[in-house]
């Protein structure tokens, strides 16, 4: 393609130096986001999804964090490993970000209005008065009632849901082309979750803004995203469109996540099946597939060698990192078989 993707991440690797050794938190992640697209990154806690996006934003604490390789290109230009001054050309301006816990993610001693206005003053050089006016509009846009009064209130005077709206208002201040939402609904009540997701979708469809949504909740994914990356143990194990991920799951882990998800559809006696065990210790990632120890279909090769991403030529965005997709592998019940070109080897 001639045009660049909005954000293109390739082979990103991140490590953390800790007391107990080096944690390889992200191990070569590739994905891209188009303008106006909603991409969800799913995975259980500790799989590296938050580290991935925070590394792109340059906000992981360094040290102990360290980006050991890869690149992230925003509209074609590299944004990984920039110094604070250069990074601030896109942070808050081109890419907005909201976090998991709105209660602790806002400065407790500054008014909401001042915190939103701050972004505008820094990136657009507005006066306090102009910035506050825009802040008020932003609060209205994120459906915060009594916006004028709310501007002068402090975070502790807000409820969780209202705070997350204020966070969104703040991240939208400079009309970014990409919004990264790092588990935006995890800390909120279920009813509030739905409102926030609706708000995000609405803003996205109206402004044509792209969103990267980090979550561990498949229901949230189904509701919001167009494309999905499933992460496990610091790697993307399956990626594809929402439909592909949900109806043509090609990785046993995705399948496991689905079985562990409650649903209100049809099947009467559906039993929730937890995935046994826990993710591998990333101090020393296994040489084989990270999921092999928990995988009910594990084969000899799975313990020896980490599988590559197998992608389907007919559905080029659908790919899975699983030996079961290799040509010659046994067919497994319930698992979608990617249509690979039977070729070399054997």
């Amino acid at each position: 393609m001639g045009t660049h993707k909005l954000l293109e991440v390739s082979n990103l690797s991140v490590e953390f130096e800790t007391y107990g050794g080096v944690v390889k938190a992200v191990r070569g992640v590739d994905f891209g986001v188009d303008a106006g697209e909603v991409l969800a990154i799913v995975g259980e806690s500790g799989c590296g999804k938050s580290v991935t996006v925070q590394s792109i934003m340059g906000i992981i604490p360094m040290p102990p964090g360290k980006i050991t390789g890869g690149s992230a290109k925003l509209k074609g230009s590299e944004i990984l490993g920039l110094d604070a001054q250069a990074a601030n050309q896109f942070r808050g301006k081109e890419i907005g970000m909201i976090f998991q816990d709105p209660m602790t993610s806002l400065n407790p001693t500054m008014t909401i209005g001042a915190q939103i206005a701050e972004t505008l003053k820094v990136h657009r050089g507005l006066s306090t008065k102009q910035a506050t006016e825009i802040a008020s509009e932003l609060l209205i846009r994120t459906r915060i009632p009594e916006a004028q009064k709310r501007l002068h209130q402090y975070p502790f005077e807000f409820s969780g849901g209202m705070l997350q709206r204020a966070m969104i208002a703040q991240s939208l201040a400079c009309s970014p082309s990409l919004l990264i939402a790092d588990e935006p609904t995890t800390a909120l009540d279920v009813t509030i979750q739905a409102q926030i997701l609706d708000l995000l979708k609405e803003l996205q469809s109206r402004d044509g803004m792209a969103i990267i949504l980090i979550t561990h909740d498949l229901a949230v994914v189904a509701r919001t995203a167009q494309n999905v990356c499933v992460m496990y143990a610091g790697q993307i194990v399956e990626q594809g469109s929402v439909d592909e991920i949900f109806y043509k799951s090609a990785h046993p882990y995705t399948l496991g996540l689905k079985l562990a998800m409650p649903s209100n559809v049809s099947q009467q006696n559906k039993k929730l099946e937890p995935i046994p065990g826990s993710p591998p210790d990333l101090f020393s990632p296994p040489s084989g597939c990270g999921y092999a120890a928990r995988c009910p279909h594990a084969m000899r090769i799975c313990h020896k060698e980490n599988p590559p991403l197998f992608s389907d030529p007919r559905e080029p965005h659908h790919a899975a990192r699983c030996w079961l997709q290799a040509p010659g592998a046994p067919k497994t019940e319930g698992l979608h078989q990617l249509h690979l070109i039977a070729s070399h080897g054997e």
Partner: protein
Amino acid sequence: MLKYTFGRILSGLVTIWFIATATFLAMHAVPGDPLMNEKATTPEIRENLARKYGLDKPIAEQYVIYLGNMVQGDFGISFTQQNRKVNDIIQDHFPVSAALGILAITFAALGGILWGALTALYRNQLPDIIIMFLVILGISVPSFVFAALGQLLLVNINQWFNISFLPVAGWGTFSHMIVPSLVLGLGTMALLTRLMRSSMLEIVNEDFIRTARAKGLSPSRIFFQHQLRNAILPVVTVLGPQIAAITTGGFVVELVFAIPGLGRYFVQAVQQLDYTVIMGTTVFYGAFLVFMVILVDIIYGFIDPRVRLK
């Protein structure tokens, strides 16, 4: 806020009553009687003296009179200097102690915040290591050693350069206050520096600092606007108790530097067993400290919106 202030003042008054009562009881538990080291040679003189100080009345009555006088702000007459009222002594000497104390706490607070912020900024680098080494010294060395060393240093500076750089002891001008207040504030400054440093380092890991970085704010703006301001709050909360430490530390500094403050007077009164002066100054100091703590709490309320608006 108003209700909060009112409540604090009320409980402060109750505390002062408790202090006054405890003082009264403690003084009356003393074996022997206060006239022991008076020149009460004959029984008549003793009786007259006892009558003069109201010591012939039953304890309960003495207590009521004592409280009554105190409410009117009358602490009685000194035992050793019989023409001097305790009130006069306090009036004469407290302003000196207060001036010294205010300068010391100002110096300690400003220094503590500045050094603490610096150490956090240069964490594990040379400035941090040097300042934290000094802080550990400041916490571990007793105040009287600082006072003695401060004076020794002054004497030497004046000798080496053959000038009177700053007066070695005494009271009167601002230059008399500088070294004593520095010495007095040193321990508190060390404590505040430590507190400020840990507070700063804790705040660096807060989510809202991450948000500020994600917003694209410059490091200096994050430092001043977001980190420093929030880090100062816990420092302010310990200022109240630290005022008490500075007050008692003042005793030593006043002794060493020959400053005519109330602290030195109190120590003297204790050594001479001047009962009315001891009781008067104890209650006065107690009341003073209680209200300083309340004052700091109220000031804190103004700085922290979470307290102010609740």
